[in-house]
């Protein structure tokens, strides 16, 4: 049996339908990818923020209110934690310093000049020795330390902001 080839019109219609379908799929996938990227950007930032906060507070909670100094109008904190208690007396670690550097990184410095980047995209960092009603000038007379972190990240042309706050009750304030 003799077969006839497709006419140009048939091919064009088929190509148009194919392009329409592929375009639709691409549109849907692109929208999905955009949403995915947005969620990933937000999730990455939030995850990073929480890890940074957790890392800082896990260490901070081991200090005592007597061993905390808040510097630079609340933007930096220095404290000591027990390094060794096995002898029955507390041997302290020496100062541990948290601050934000010029590259918007949260930095932990301990011992002096030994730096570790704890988090990126830091927009703000604030510490406050809380006495129940206000920030106390002297941490020794306060009950807890409030830590506020602000993050700002631009990812794939989107800007994400995230703030976390924790009120840390220190464990060595006996």
């Amino acid at each position, binding site marked *: 049996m003799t077969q006839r080839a497709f006419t140009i019109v048939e091919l064009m219609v088929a190509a148009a339908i194919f392009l329409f379908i592929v375009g639709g799929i691409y549109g849907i996938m692109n929208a999905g990818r955009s949403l*995915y990227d947005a969620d990933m950007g937000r999730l990455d930032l939030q995850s990073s923020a929480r890890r940074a906060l957790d890392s800082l507070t896990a260490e901070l909670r*081991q200090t005592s209110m007597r061993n905390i100094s808040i510097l630079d109008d609340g933007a930096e904190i220095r404290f000591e934690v027990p390094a060794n*208690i096995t002898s029955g007396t507390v041997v302290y670690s020496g100062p541990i310093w948290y601050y934000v550097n010029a590259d918007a990184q949260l930095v932990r410095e301990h011992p002096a000049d030994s730096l570790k980047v704890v988090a990126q995209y830091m927009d703000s960092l604030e510490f406050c020795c809380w006495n129940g009603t206000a920030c106390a000038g002297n941490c020794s007379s306060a009950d807890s330390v409030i830590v506020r972190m602000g993050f700002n990240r631009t990812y794939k042309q989107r800007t994400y902001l995230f703030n976390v706050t924790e009120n840390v009750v220190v464990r060595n304030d*006996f």
Partner: protein
Amino acid sequence: MISNKRGSALIIVYMVIAVLTILGTGIMSRELSEISNTRRYSDAVRAFWFAEAGIYKELYELNYPSTDVGWPGSGEVRDVAITNISSSTKMINVTGYFDNSSATISVLAAKSGSPFNFAAFGNTSLSISGQGNVSSYNSTSDPSGTVRLSNGDIGTNGDITMSGQAFVYGDAATGPDGEFEDEDNDYISGNVTQDSDVYLTAVTVPSELENVTLGNSVSASWSPAAGNYRIPSISLAGQNTVTLTGPTNLYLTSTGTALAVSGQAEIVISNSSTGPVTIYTPGDISLAGQGITNEAVTPSKLLIYGTSTDSQTFACAGQGDFYGAYYAPNGDIRLSGQGDLFGSFIGDTVAISGQGNIRYDESLKTLNTTLGTYSIIAWKDSRNF
């Protein structure tokens, strides 16, 4: 014929499926990684809280040795190590596990605080049948006790029986299964609760006192200088006087009558004391007549600790006022005198039948001794993220 037809639909479908599969695999791989990270973090946090819960469980059981608070939850494993640092300090190490995560917390726990937190407390029972009131004052701010305060708490892990005309300016606490019997509608100004669970820590004689050379019993007038003394007993009658000047630690070793005062005899706690007179004894104490005169009228200047692991008595039936604090986990306390009693009385049983008032000295609550409870003095933790 169909077999001779060529088409592209199947190929397109395969391509779309392939693309979607690649995309889906990528997304799934990332999600699985996220889930794994989140789970690891979650496990680490749980391990840490298990360790912290373990610390407080061990601490509670140190303070209440007869109590097993149990361990709710399942799947977790705890490693616990308790090391004696000194007679009053322990190190507690607890490692909490959850799946492959672990966290270790080490704390130093030291005994501190005061055992004198009640006007009167009897581990087994407490009864009041006299006419005297129970109230409080603070010898630091009001040495003569002019102001009557309402923190003259009484308590027991068992039952409280009240009769007579006594008034209690404070709270009354019985044990969880205890009863509060108030036969004559006596007065409790504060709350009556049924939740007392106080553990009376055993008293240990300080080693430096144990090692003092044993002297002779005293039955005549005696005025030793401040210092440490170990003698079997003091028994005074007639007009003999023993004058003790603090700081003095006196260990009366007799398990019979270790301290007895009667007639016109008396024991004087000198006003020139610069520290407390602390008496340790496993024996009985009987104070009648003049009893003990505390010239400073400050209860914290006379502390009497009962060390018996069996039983001992503290009987105060004198005419004069008594200023001091008595603590004996196995002591039967009998207060039947006419004078007022300023201080605190903690024992196994307490029976108050005298006419005098009980005045709890609130400043005793801030006394720092090794008979208090273990509390954390240093904390160190590590997490394995």
